[in-house]
């Protein structure tokens, strides 16, 4: 029973990590698109990208430490 609970926790954490990975990937991809479209706004886009990625990353860590 205890092992099942632990396994469920791990699977949940894995799901969260998959979600976080997809999210950060999307942010990165969109940022690349945006930079390709407007290279002169690279700095602003990068800053916004890092902030968004950092915020999503926080959720990932929360899931990992909840395990």
């Amino acid at each position: 029973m205890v092992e099942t609970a632990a396994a469920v926790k791990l699977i949940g954490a894995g799901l969260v990590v998959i979600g976080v990975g997809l999210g950060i990937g999307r942010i990165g991809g969109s940022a690349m698109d945006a930079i390709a479209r407007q290279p002169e706004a690279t700095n602003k886009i990068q800053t916004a990208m890092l902030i968004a990625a950092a915020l999503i990353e926080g959720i990932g860590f929360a899931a990992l430490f909840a395990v």
Partner: protein
Amino acid sequence: MHRLLRILFVLAVTSPLIVNANTHADEGHGGGPETELTPEKQREKNNEFVKHHTKDSHDFGVLVDESEDKHYGFPLPVILYDNGIHFFWSSAFEHGHKVVESNGLYYKLDAHDGKIYKTDEHGHVLKKVVIDEDTKEESLEELMPLDLSITKNVFIIFLMSILMFFLFRGIAKSYRTGLAPTGAAKFFEPIILFIRDDIAIPNIGEKQHKKYMVYLLTVFFFIWFLNLAGMTPLGINVTGNLAVTAALALCTFVITTFTAKKDYWMHIVWMPGVPVPMKIMLFPIEVIGMFVKPFALMIRLYANMLAGHIVLGALIAAVFFFDAFLAKGAFIGLTFFMNIIELLVALLQAYIFTMLTALYFGAAAAEGHH
């Protein structure tokens, strides 16, 4: 100064190779018995190696010779608070082999978790009975004194603080002779200006940013320098400690809360621009958010740095786990690559921490523009 930085860079990049050399030397001394290690034993040893390198310790160990149980390094002072202050050098523990008597009380260092436990004179750990409030079950808990020792991490923080103080005071002094930057200022001035022009001003605003600059600059260079210190082959992992990042995040939280203007509290208590039921619903969410923000700051830095060190440690351990020449070469290459990535992460995490801190300050300092 530039030359010094170049040397530091080369040192940082080649650090795994130096660690390799050290570990290799250890194995060379081992001789007979060590060659008979089973893969399970080796794996355990590697685990121990990685864990040990990410942990704080009570002495500054550089090298451990396992075959002769010799430790190279130097001891650090131990300060305990347990019905009065106890002070002695960590060398007295002899790496967990000896019980230390101080003012009539006995202490022992656990070599595995690196913590100091209270014992009797024979080295048996003293325990007290704890009753679980929910289950009413009784369990025994080891007694530990309040440990305020100058550990390896505290020592490094102290060292880095001194370095930072003299470095930036030197830069400040260099401006007295002329307005153009000279020496180290040439390298650091663009970074200082970057923090002001690209982090503080866009997030906090032209008018308000001045009073936050001191904290932003200090926190950026503090994290960056300690991250870089972690890249040296001395096995330092300061920013990958929860206590360190918690203290930094707490500072951000305290400054945010105490410099917050009316607007900030309005947004938490009574969110403007949304219908009344939403206002009531948003209140608890905003209150939780207030605490989650610094919590995320703390966890992010801690987890990133710790993860980086674990990955590096694991890769270095893998170099010795495999015998094939090709595998060794591949893992050395991978370690080198990871080191460069970590060098980037060291800067990136400092930047993100500063950036998000500035963002929170900006929310606190904002004045009614809604």
